């Protein structure tokens, strides 16, 4: 079956684009974001949901987005809006559906069932459409592991911090308020072998604060972050580009492995130290990240 999504790919930046703004939709592709997320949820007024659906549907069908991952954030399924959104965007060819306000594995399962129904109706192979789940509540955070394992379509789980901190009876500050949620989501994602994506940083004029947060989530192990302004994309990507000396070390590790293999030896060493498996995995990942960055220049 041909899937519309690639499970394992570069997702440093997922750019939010309001679904009822034609100008921003048309320009979305030029900023180099790894993923573009058209939003039908919070950025669209209740009275404009229908119009946004038409706009995003037509944009998905006619505009060219190169090799970018195209995500659409739907409304939650409880009020009926979410299903209408799916009816419009699944046939239009969305790569990944982003489910908001995911509190439990059941939310994912319910959404997947609707997607499968719509795929079948249109003769699209069932399973072609990917999913991701945004966790935005204490319940969701505590259920993160079950959510992450709830569907084979999931490419990742994301933290939605604004609703979450409200649920916790706190506010956004230096990041300490999100420490538990970020750790839970990251570990849940890794346990399921999918991506972990961080929340937005909404003060677009505070580049220093943004970079500090990027550094924090990069160190924690996140794949990337949602961005609300294109200006945040380049600084974000720069932070994720491997440092040259780390990259050189990674190439040296891989050279040593290749050389050991050529010798027919199972044991490789570098500078007199044996190279164990985690070192190889980290080196591979670093090289993949650097190569992927070079590849993102639009084809």
């Amino acid at each position, binding site marked *: 079956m041909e899937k519309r999504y690639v499970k394992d790919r570069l997702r440093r930046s997922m750019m939010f684009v309001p679904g009822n703004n034609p*100008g921003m939709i*048309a*320009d979305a592709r*030029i*900023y180099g974001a790894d993923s573009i997320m058209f939003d039908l949820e919070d950025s669209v007024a209740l009275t404009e949901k229908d119009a946004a659906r038409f706009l995003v549907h037509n944009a998905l069908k006619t*505009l*060219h987005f190169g090799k970018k991952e195209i995500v659409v954030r739907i409304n939650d399924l409880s009020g009926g809006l979410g299903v209408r959104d799916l009816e419009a965007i699944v046939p239009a060819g969305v790569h990944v559906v982003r489910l908001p306000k995911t509190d439990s594995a059941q939310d994912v399962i319910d959404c997947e069932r609707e997607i499968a129904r719509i795929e079948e109706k249109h003769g699209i192979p069932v399973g072609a459409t990917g999913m991701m789940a945004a966790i935005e509540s204490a319940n969701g955070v505590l259920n993160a592991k079950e959510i992450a394992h709830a569907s084979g379509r999931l490419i990742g789980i994301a933290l939605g911090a604004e609703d979450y901190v409200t649920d916790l009876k706190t506010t956004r500050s230096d990041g300490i308020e999100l420490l538990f949620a970020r750790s839970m989501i990251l570990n849940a994602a890794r346990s399921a072998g999918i991506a972990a994506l961080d929340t937005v940083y909404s003060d677009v004029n505070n580049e220093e604060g943004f970079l500090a947060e990027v550094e924090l989530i990069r160190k924690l192990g996140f794949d990337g972050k949602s961005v609300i*302004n*294109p*200006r945040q994309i*380049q600084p974000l990507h720069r932070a994720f580009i491997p440092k040259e000396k780390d990259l050189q070390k990674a190439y040296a590790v891989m050279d040593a492995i290749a050389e050991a293999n050529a010798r027919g030896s199972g044991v490789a060493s570098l500078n007199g130290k044996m190279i164990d498996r985690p070192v190889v995995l980290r080196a591979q990942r670093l090289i993949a990240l650097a190569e992927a960055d*070079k590849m993102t*220049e*639009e084809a």
Partner: protein
Amino acid sequence: MDEQLLQNIPHIDEIAHHGVFSGVPAKHTGTFQDRAQRQNKLLPSLEDAVRATGLRDGMTISFHHHFRGGDHVVNRVVDTLARMGFKNLTLAASSLAAVHAPLIEHIKNGVITHIETSGLRGELAEQISRGLMDCPVVFRSHGGRAAAIRSGELHIDVAFLGAPSCDPYGNANGYSREEGGTLACGSMGYARTDAKYASKVVILTNKLVSYPNAPWAIPEYDVDYIVVEEDIGDPKGIMSGATRYTKNPKELLIAQTAANVIDAAGYLYNGFSMQMGSGGASLATARFIRQMMLDKSIRCRFALGGITGQITAMHEEGLIDRVLDVQSFDLDAAHSLKHNRFHHQIGATYYASFLSAAAVDQLDFVVLSALEIDTDFNVNVLTGSDGVIRGAIGGHPDTAAGASLSVVVAPLTRGRIPCVIGRVNTVVTPGDVVDVVVTDQGVAVNPKRPEVAGKLRAAGIRVYTIQELKDKAEALVGVPDPIRYKDRIVGVVMYRNNTVIDVIRQIDED
């Protein structure tokens, strides 16, 4: 000494002289301050000055555009000339703005029958595009105008030059170093050419200062008459506080790419020279250039052109050694001109005339805006996508021709209008002097510069053909129907050497 002795001087016929010394006129003995009150070039009114110049019907009058949208001089003078009954005048301004719409009435009344300018905007431009004038408007670049004035192709009979400071003998400037002195418009570079070559020069000033008004943009020997006018312009329209860097993400993306291109092409070295336009993306390029300079620990030898606060800030932080300022774009730039000794005021000839070795010829790179670029790299900065005049040539062709690397920046599309097209509506800068086009959706290099393309590729910058950029634009917005024009020519566009490079026709709205 007598006549006899004079004749006895060997080779006297070959020595230029004016005969025998015959005494001196009565020496003045009053104080110089007293003299400045009585023996000066001040006249009580503009009408008196006009009469004194000997202006006649059919002559050419000139103005500068350093007051931009705040200018009150052009309208005030032409109103006066109309009242005095003048007809059939040629108005040769360094540029005109939307504020000059009242000229429409004077064109209809036959006071002004011909216009020369760098640009036109607003209602005046609209009406000229719709056939207001019988004789086509002549558009020249700043360098082209300076050359035409010097060569006599554009002879100015009377220049009316607004000056924010002037002394009783005519030393005039765009600012004043007097205590509490005004900043006003900063550089008066374009006015210098008019003052030097016009038959008669009238300064209109709102600030008469004591002799000597040093430094001056215009020296007293180039000035004939001075009129003090309370209102020569609206300070708010002349200059805004500081030109701000754009926050538009698309313009920032273009600017970042332009800076990367300049660096990759090898023109960002210690001691380089540059010019930036004042438009969103071209100005924002300075911000990225600045960061690269800090990262590389290099300095710029000089920055040229219309100068903004971004450039003077870099000067003040030691990144730019010299600033050559033909026109100050904001108060920060004017402030720097007044206070920084290596921020120099230059005239239009020095800036860009092809008849001299001009400063533009020493540029490493220039970053320029465009309304349209075509697949031959020709650039239009004069007429909008609807064919109506709404821009100015400025120094576009001068700097593009002079700089080792000319970088033209533009969005690939503006709304639904493609900016990279098959043929520009008006050729202002010929493609032969345009080296790189930078859009938000890709970079194209003129095939005449294969080495630049190679360097960009080596630096990991994807290089498209200009045709590919055009195709990308069309894939997005579709193919526009062509603008309809009538046969009648309403504008003549001169290249910087004052050869006719294109014409502008009346738009057809029938």
